[in-house]
């Protein structure tokens, strides 16, 4: 590697998050006596990353465009609750989950369009709009439509999808664990998001708008339309991801998404996205989600008392973000 490339690399937040992640894995591996890198633990961690990872990616694309979405958990909750409710009532999806997914995507897209309409049309601060729509959508889900938890009556195909796996692994004690098929959703989403962000003009438009919205307009982008499409897509994806979660957890709980944004957004920022827009990468985001999932999945292995887990969670985020902040500050000099 030549020198300038190296220098450029060391300037990126992603680089540091990656190093922290590796160091952390090594550290936990040692402290836990080699339990972290057991295949069974690894597949569990991967499984844990599926939903959060995908959520983080939609958060990332919004943040790249200079937005801030607080409403995606509320959209997701509405979409999957409505979709599963309809499926259960109609007796759909006993053998094929497609209809459920399509419904969730449709509902997500509709609510996303509502976001997009307000944001694009009135040029309002996105964080504030989505704070309003988050509250409003939650009111819709739980108040107006009073959606219920669906557990044992969940359509069989959802269950089957959640239970399906690629392969089995065994740990040294002979315990079995499986790698869920849903991991492909994450992989596809990583691939598609990277491709869109790096290789399509739509993705570049998001970076451009996040970097300088006025310039993007002058350069000829239809900023209004792009933003609208963005929020519709994010809504649709939120619905889809919610459905994946329903399948994995084998239950549809309308309240399960409450506060999710407060877990996801810090991870995305930790992964190098800028709250002012225009910065951020899929790699960094996935590293950060990996970091957080590894931490939350290895607290027990490392022997941290359950009562102290929240504290250590906070501490890890704080340390991670301090490293990247201090490094950024040093560079500014």
């Amino acid at each position, binding site marked *: 590697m030549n020198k300038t490339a190296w220098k450029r690399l060391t300037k990126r937040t992603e680089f540091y998050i990656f190093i922290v992640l590796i160091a952390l894995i090594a550290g936990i591996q040692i402290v836990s006596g080699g339990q972290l890198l057991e295949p069974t633990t690894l597949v569990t961690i991967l499984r844990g990353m599926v939903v959060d990872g995908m959520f983080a990616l939609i958060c990332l694309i919004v943040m790249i465009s200079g937005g801030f979405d607080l409403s995606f958990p509320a959209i997701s909750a509405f979409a999957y609750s409505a979709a599963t409710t309809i499926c259960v009532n109609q007796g759909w999806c006993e053998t094929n989950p497609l209809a459920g997914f399509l419904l969730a995507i449709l509902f997500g897209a509709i609510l996303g369009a509502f976001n997009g309409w307000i944001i694009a049309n009135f040029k309002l601060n996105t964080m504030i709009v989505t704070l309003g729509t988050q509250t409003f959508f939650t009111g819709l889900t739980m108040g107006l439509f009073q959606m219920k938890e669906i557990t044992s009556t969940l359509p069989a195909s959802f269950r089957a999808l959640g239970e399906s796996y690629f392969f089995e692994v065994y740990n040294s004690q002979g315990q079995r664990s499986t790698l869920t098929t849903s991991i492909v959703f994450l992989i596809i989403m990583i691939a598609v998001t990277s491709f869109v962000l790096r290789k399509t003009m739509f993705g570049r438009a998001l970076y451009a708008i996040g970097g300088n919205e006025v310039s993007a307009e002058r350069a000829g982008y239809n900023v209004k339309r792009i933003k609208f499409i963005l929020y519709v897509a994010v809504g649709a994806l939120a619905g889809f991801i919610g459905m994946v979660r329903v399948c994995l957890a084998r239950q549809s709980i309308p309240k399960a998404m409450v506060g999710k944004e407060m877990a996801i957004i810090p991870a995305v920022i930790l992964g190098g996205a800028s709250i002012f827009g225009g910065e951020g990468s899929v790699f960094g985001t996935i590293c950060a989600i990996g970091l957080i999932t590894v931490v939350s999945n290895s607290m027990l292995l490392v022997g941290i008392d359950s*009562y102290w887990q929240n504290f250590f969670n906070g501490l890890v985020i704080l340390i991670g973000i301090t490293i990247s902040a201090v490094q950024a500050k040093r560079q500014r000099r």
Partner: protein
Amino acid sequence: MKFKNFANKNQYTVMLLVMLAAVLVFFSITRGSLLWTGDAWYGMAMQFPEYGLMTLGVMFCFITGNIDMSFVALGNFATIFAVRYMAANAAEGASDGHVRAVIVTGILITLLICLIGGFINGVLVTKLGIPPVMATIAMQLVWQGLSTALTQGNTVTGLPAMYTEIGHSKMFGFLPFPLFIFIIAFILCALIVRYTVYGEMIYMIGTNVKAVRYSGINTDRVVILTFVITALVSGVGSLIMVSTMASAKADYGSSYVMRVILILVLAGILPDGGMGKIPDLLLALVIIQIIASGVNMFASLNTYYASLIWGALLLIVLIASTKLSGGIFKIRDDKKKKQVSSQ
């Protein structure tokens, strides 16, 4: 004529007044007999001071262009200590004077811990340059984690009766004590914001931190002080919460974080900084509380209808405000440019 002038200058306030009137008319018509009772208003007056104080505290943060998500967790952490202390030292049968001294010490302990917590937030944001959302979300986890660890998740009880009684007493025979405290704090904060150099500086800092720094003002100190004030004022809210609940716990008031932000935004006090007026805050608070209590007057509406109405109201205000001159909720280009260039 005079009104017209006022209305022109304070379009946003007028809009909130209209909202308030609309909400009142709506509930008067549908639930007049329940709304217009002394008890109903007394109930509301008992409820909003605790999160009202938190809102008041976080307002300072918002004005400087920062955000605080840790205040509830910090308040709980602090009051856990205070309640433990009070429980341990004000034994049954102790003299009134002694109990009074213990209570005062307990309050001071709370405020001291809040002060430290606010200071840590401020240092993380100014000296380490961590974005405030991140720093305070992390600190929220830290405080809540510490509280859970220290109490093993249990409720801390044993407050001297005197303390809880104060919380439920009435000043001058009619004014609920929490409301009294809120009014005092509100007036104090309004005076600070309007009539002190500090108040002037936070608005300027919220608009452009760099310009203020380049005017020879130690902005880091002002911002740290702001986080401390936020923590202190919202700490008073926590103290009131503790007295209504007669106990302290790691997760009390966890639903207040989002509510406080919602109220501030509705009041036009945005985390972008440099904006908003304190009377609007009062209006927004009252609107939010009336909706919450109003929804509770309908036997058949579940509580989520309050969310529904809050969200709808905020969106209506947002969209309506684009028609006003100024357009406070618009994307702030200047703000963004500033941030980018200062990075």
